[in-house]
């Protein structure tokens, strides 16, 4: 439905615009900027997952692992005093793409619950591998004393620059996912998700398409991981664990599956809730959990569905 698609785009642009204007409209304080960075990075990661789940029908429960690979690329290179984006970025891209290719080559052969379990298993393998990397913090995690440099400059230390870097990356992720889904490649993915037999019966073997989608999604997540490592200035095995993967899935569903604006809205609301609720009570998860459950039950189509962006 073109009308629904347009609303989806409009909603996304509005959110991006608000994020662009926020630091200039009195929300420039440090704690706001930290919050925004977290929102945008998770929004980008959720977008890449939404591309997999809503686009290709690949409900990965190991998506955080790909994000963690990107974050650990930053940590490991930093430990070896390689601190410039010109090296960190290509290494992170290659590492997360390779990780997704190797795990995806096996996982994508399966479907449904099996796919979920296999991606979960790979995610936990990554988690335990990270825990055992004692040279890079092991269980305790790795503190990043200086953010990654950009061509020798310390631009990323500037909160404003970092804010717009994250925003730029979010915009890139969104454009990339939207473009891919509309392309020939994306059409085959969408067809495979809805009716794999039909896709085969017009001549498409789904495997290579699904695998490539998995690698693209994982690589985008890896890039989000690079930003996340820099935002938190700390890298821990927990970044890769199944809880984090579950949170990402939740953001996608909370926002509305099948709409890219949904992943962004879902991530923003999720981050807001997990930031505000602990101020009310230390038992905030007792409130957080039911809110999420009620949201899923009563908001069919998620936040973006409620706001009128019909499924495209």
């Amino acid at each position, binding site marked *: *439905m073109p009308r629904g698609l347009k609303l989806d785009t409009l909603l996304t642009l509005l959110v991006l615009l608000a994020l662009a204007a926020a630091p200039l409209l009195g929300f420039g304080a440090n704690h706001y900027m930290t919050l925004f960075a977290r929102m945008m990075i998770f929004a980008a990661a959720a977008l890449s997952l939404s591309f997999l789940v809503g686009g290709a029908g690949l409900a990965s429960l190991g998506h955080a692992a790909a994000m963690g690979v990107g974050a650990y690329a930053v940590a490991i290179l930093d430990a070896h005093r390689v601190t410039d984006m010109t090296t960190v970025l290509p290494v992170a891209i290659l590492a997360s793409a390779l990780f997704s290719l190797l795990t995806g080559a096996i996982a994508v052969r399966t479907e449904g619950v099996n796919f979920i379990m296999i991606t979960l298993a790979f995610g936990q393998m990554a988690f335990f591998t990270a825990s055992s990397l004692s040279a890079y913090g092991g269980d305790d995690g790795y503190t990043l004393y200086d953010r990654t440099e950009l061509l020798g400059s310390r631009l990323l230390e500037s909160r404003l620059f970092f804010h717009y870097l994250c925003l730029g990356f979010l915009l890139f992720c969104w454009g990339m996912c939207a*473009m*891919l889904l*509309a*392309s*020939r*490649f*994306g*059409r*085959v993915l*969408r*067809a495979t998700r*809805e*009716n794999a*037999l*039909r*896709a*085969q*019966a*017009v*001549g*498409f*073997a789904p495997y*290579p*398409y699904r695998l*490539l989608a998995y690698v693209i999604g994982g690589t985008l997540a890896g890039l989000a991981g690079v930003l996340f490592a820099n935002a938190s200035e700390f890298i821990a095995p927990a970044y890769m664990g199944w809880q984090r993967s579950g949170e990402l899935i939740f953001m996608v569903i909370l926002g509305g599956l099948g709409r890219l604006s949904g992943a962004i809205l879902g991530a923003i609301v999720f981050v807001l809730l997990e930031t505000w609720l602990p101020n009310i009570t230390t038992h905030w998860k007792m409130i957080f959990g039911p809110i999420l459950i009620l949201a899923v039950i009563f908001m069919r189509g998620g936040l973006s569905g409620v706001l009128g962006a019909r*499924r495209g």
Partner: protein
Amino acid sequence: MGFWGRAVAEALLSIQGLRKHYGGLAVTNDVSLDVRPGEIHALIGPNGAGKTTLIHQISGTVTPDAGRVVFADADITRLSLPRRVQAGLARSFQITSIIAGFSVLENVALAAQAKSGSSFRFFRPAAREEKLNATARNALAEVGLAERANAIAGALSHGEKRALEIAIALASAPRLLLLDEPLAGAGPEETEKLIALLRRLKARYAILLVEHDMQAVFALADRISVLAEGRIIASGSTAEIRASAEVRAAYLGDEDLPC
């Protein structure tokens, strides 16, 4: 058909000694048949005769235990379903199989896309590829769905969905159509439309038609093969099949052959 005509009319699809066992049950028992260009070869038989299993082996979703499937002089017995479609063997499904969330046009354009260059293209919106849309529109016009191009496929009536299935098969530029009960579940009016459609298609495509509607089979088919308990018990022109005592026996108590 004359002497010269026979030479031209070499089989496009030829099934040779196909066998499939499930446990001790021979579901396909030494089945051989062929389909020539431009003809409708109908496959009939009582429920449980093994028609669907046979169709699956021809289209590539079930692998036979023995025998060969030869299409356009190439052995395709071991090819996957997608590869067979690319070779020109399109199928429709007994239970409607469309992409319900796609528009009618996109359902058909997807099939056109499979036949028009690589689908590992990432930049241009597929919906704006006029070449694919034109192919899709032609196929839709052919089955009488041109006006419904922008509707969501899931919202079509049952008869329209059956027609859409055929349009999808046509858009993949097939040489042979494998139609698995295209009339299943259609009302009398829809049936009439679909029969007229199949008659129009007959001149241009070889068709292997599996159908329960005997009226339709006898109206459309050039040749008929009768499958019972996994074996072909009779094969010949409509007149020959109508006269065959064996066929009557197989159908006795099932349904009467129309005369």
